[in-house]
């Protein structure tokens, strides 16, 4: 297995891992958004979806641990690359002008760290119930975890809704570069189809951001869930 470790810890190998884990995280954000958009289908649909996920039992834990491992690997690769890249230029230019590099591509670690901070908060909010224990404890008429009321009550608070909006802007920034970049790192870019793939991936990233923005904003402005009161 030494060959594998050696091969994956080079600059090119680490970028391959970065892209592989980034791609899985990206696909997860797509699935996560599609699942949660069921908030627009009403309490029964969303709570049934949540109960269905819980019923997966051990499989749910396999998925959760896989996701956690992917996330941790992505972050470890990020730190390793950032360190390598900083060491490669110990003396900075007095004047440096980017030519083709986009703002998003130059600030991946910043947008990534903001997403990380958000993920910690998001888990404390909806998965662990640490920030709003009272919302987390709610049960619906059928005795299920009342995810719908928990989400609506959360997003009715402007501060909570705003933090989600800000986080989505930075996820969008991260993916506006990352979604296309992963094709280059995976070695899938060929002139013939690179513009198509990169465009489609960027479009999908945009959909994730818009879909995720729709939830806090529509609840904050009482377009959805106005019947729910604390």
């Amino acid at each position, binding site marked *: 297995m030494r060959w594998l470790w050696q*091969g994956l810890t080079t*600059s*090119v190998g680490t970028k391959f891992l970065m892209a592989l884990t980034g791609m899985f995280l990206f696909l997860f954000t797509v699935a996560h958004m599609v699942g949660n958009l069921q908030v627009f289908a009403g309490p029964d649909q969303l709570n049934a979806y949540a109960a269905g996920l819980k019923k997966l039992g051990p499989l749910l834990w396999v998925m959760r641990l896989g996701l956690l491992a992917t996330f941790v690997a992505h972050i470890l690769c990020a730190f390793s690359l950032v360190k390598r*890249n900083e060491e490669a230029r110990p003396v900075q230019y*007095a004047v440096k002008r980017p*030519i*083709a*590099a986009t703002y998003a591509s130059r600030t991946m670690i910043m947008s990534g760290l903001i997403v990380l901070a958000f993920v910690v908060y998001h888990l404390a909010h909806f998965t662990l119930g640490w920030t709003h224990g009272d919302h987390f404890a709610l049960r619906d008429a059928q005795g299920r975890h009342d995810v719908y009321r928990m989400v609506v009550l959360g997003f009715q608070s402007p501060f909570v809704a705003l933090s989600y909006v800000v986080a989505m802007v930075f996820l969008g920034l991260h993916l506006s570069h990352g979604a296309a970049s992963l094709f280059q790192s995976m070695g*899938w870019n060929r002139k013939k189809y690179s513009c198509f793939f990169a465009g489609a991936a960027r479009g999908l990233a945009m959909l994730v951001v818009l879909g995720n923005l729709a939830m806090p904003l529509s609840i904050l402005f009482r377009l959805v869930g106005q019947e729910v009161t604390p």
Partner: protein
Amino acid sequence: MNLTLKVWRQAGPSDRGRLVTYEAKHVSPDMSFLEMLDVVNEDLIARGEDPIAFDSDCREGICGACSCMIDGVPHGPDRGTTTCQLHMRHFKDGDTITIEPWRARAFPVLKDLVVDRSAFDRIIQAGGFISVNTGGAPDANLIPVPKPDADKAFDAAACIGCGACVAACKNASAMLFVSAKVAHLGYLPQGQSERDARVRNLVMAMDAQGFGACTNTYDCEAACPKEIPADFISRMNRDYRSALLKGDA
């Protein structure tokens, strides 16, 4: 035209160095950037000062010796040109121009604007070649090479090894240079037998020299005076992955 230059002056590898301001007077728009520096140096020599050291050789854009970071862009504002082929008509009277050496751990400054680029040579030694038996020259066209492959190999071989890709990259990465070497030999039949070993050895040598990794910002291809496309980097990533998975462990 008259210009103000802010030039990096550094007496030697261990000197700290600093930007020094010079006035360049009576610059003709038809001068090349290096000719403009020559004129400034004439003045410095006449005043008994040390002239600004910079690299140059062919002065016709083919050798890759010239290497100035001009206002934060390698080889200056004109795309697809080397510093020696950059003409002063791209600047305006009264401009202030900042001139710095390439900045990378792998390219230590020797003096003023001159950096040591032998890290590139050490990468080439690690795999940027094909092994052939010496002897009588083989007949021309003995090995058929499809025209599209020959064209691609030639696009990659246009690299003059100037290091602008490293200078432009926010990570001081040499990916464009290395990927051009991988592609230039990898597209040709003569390069096949060593193809897997080559990409692995080149990548490891690149890392060992202290170059950074790739963030796919594509400043390298934008800065390349030979306009070598970053597609070659994706091809190198592909070659590297297949080389990693193939062969005995």
